[in-house]
């Protein structure tokens, strides 16, 4: 597991804003500190507004690094992301990061990336950092397919690629070719992927989790992910990426995020 730099609380300048898909915004932040220290799979805690409310930040995966900053790609779904969606060039935003443990990337490892919808957001950074054997993407429709140069794309309505679920793309060949398998997407999709992958390949699987967060740096115990030993691990500190074997899928699904 890669060791993490101490996160810092940065005032970041917004340098670009783009609506990459309907209701999906990509924002570029200038921040040399995060550019210099972030690892794929890590996230930041972003302050959605300078006012008193909302009372917590919003966790967003680092989508990719630029020379002097980083970019976030997010879905506009509620209060916080609505405020974030109107951030525009010239704004200064408080961002704490990089946070959490990202993908466990052994040198020389060949990767299979399996993503569902916007869950594929963080893959750009991973893809830029490792040797990728294949990228399999599933989405509900073309409006939810992130530009990523994926090897194979399916959509539920067939609007991009063939019609189907991402699990239909998973073959023994893909699985055998990979030393590491990264999975990111909605919980139900990740569980389906996990169940599709035969036992013998499961040790290679890493799961990128999400949880409602308080702090983001391990102090509030609010972000627990149910673990197969019956206990919990902290999404923000021990995750967000976990070995697939750690996850207690049943209890996690019950949480309903």
């Amino acid at each position: 597991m890669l060791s993490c730099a101490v996160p810092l609380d940065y005032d970041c300048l917004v340098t670009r804003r783009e609506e990459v898909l309907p209701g999906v915004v990509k924002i570029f932040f200038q921040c040399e500190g995060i550019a210099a220290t972030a690892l794929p799979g890590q996230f930041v805690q972003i302050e959605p507004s300078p006012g008193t409310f909302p009372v917590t930040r919003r966790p967003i995966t680092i989508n990719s690094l630029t020379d002097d900053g980083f970019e976030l790609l997010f879905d506009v779904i509620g209060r916080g992301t609505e405020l974030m969606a109107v951030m525009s060039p010239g704004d200064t935003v408080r961002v704490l990061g990089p946070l959490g443990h990202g993908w466990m990337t052994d040198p020389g490892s060949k990767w299979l990336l399996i993503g569902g919808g916007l869950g594929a957001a963080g893959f750009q950074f991973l893809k830029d950092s490792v040797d990728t054997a294949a990228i399999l993407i599933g989405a509900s429709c073309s409006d939810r397919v992130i530009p990523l140069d994926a090897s194979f794309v399916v959509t539920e309505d067939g609007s991009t690629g063939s019609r189907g679920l991402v699990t239909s793309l998973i073959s023994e060949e893909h699985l055998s070719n990979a030393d590491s398998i990264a999975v990111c997407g909605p919980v139900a999709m990740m569980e389906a992927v996990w169940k599709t992958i035969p036992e013998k390949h499961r040790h290679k699987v890493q799961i990128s989790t999400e949880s409602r967060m308080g702090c983001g740096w391990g102090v509030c115990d609010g972000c627990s992910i149910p673990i197969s030993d019956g206990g919990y691990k902290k999404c923000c500190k021990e995750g967000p990426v976990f070995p697939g074997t750690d996850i207690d899928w049943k209890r996690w699904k019950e949480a309903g995020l």
Partner: protein
Amino acid sequence: MSFPPNIKRKFWGKLFDSPIMLASGTAGFGEELLNLNCLAGVGAVVSKAVSLKPRAGNPPPRLLETPYGLLNSIGLANPGVHHVLNHILPETSNLPCPLLINVAGESVEEFADVVSILESSNVHMGYEINVSCPNVADGGAAFGVDPEVVLRVAMGVSRVTARPFSVKLTPNGGDMVLSAKAAVEGGASAITVCNTFLGMHMDWRTGKSIIKRKVAGYTSPALLPLVVAKVWQVSNAVSVPVISSGGVSHGEDVLQLLAAGAQMVQVGTRLMRRPFAGAELMDEMKKLTGE
């Protein structure tokens, strides 16, 4: 008292440059914050709750943000007093400020049991006895709503430690002034006013609460006036110092609580937005008072 209140405080015989305490459950045991370099401006850290046996905590989701506040249902998750004593407290020995250990119990005796086990550590200054947790052994209402029970808890703790301790009361029922007086009678060296207010969010589309335990602890900057009123009532009724807990987001809020009678002021939820709140609040206060 003089006004505007002094920022430097005397508390439990010690001089504090800052009245700010990090509230239980929002700062771990302080060691993470030391790594983050955000203990500047902090007078003391209160640990998360420690119970006799390890507690896995409540099922997720444990947090739910509402438009103007935060619901938490952590369930006093902690690795138990023995693990804390042997593996966590040693790591806190280089904290730049005093540590208070927040103690939870499921029965009157458990509080004293936890404290007596912790006595073999010398890294902490004192305790905060969290009588806001449900009295599992006796029906499930919080210990703190019954002055008789508060008295017994405080007496039990007094018996096993010579360190100072604060009793942290609950705002959810009972009469806080009576409970505070009982705590002092039982030997408490301070009163923490107060723990979280019970709150709930209902999904009106389904009739279900997203939090599995349904009700949860609610915190919000908008609760400040409730805490100010309680601090004022309790500090006028007891002779020991009052530690406020709840509603702080700006330096002005801290000054208001000090003026209402708090000797020290905790900040919790604000840390979720602002890990460096200690230093920020101190700056804001100094700007306002010119101190």
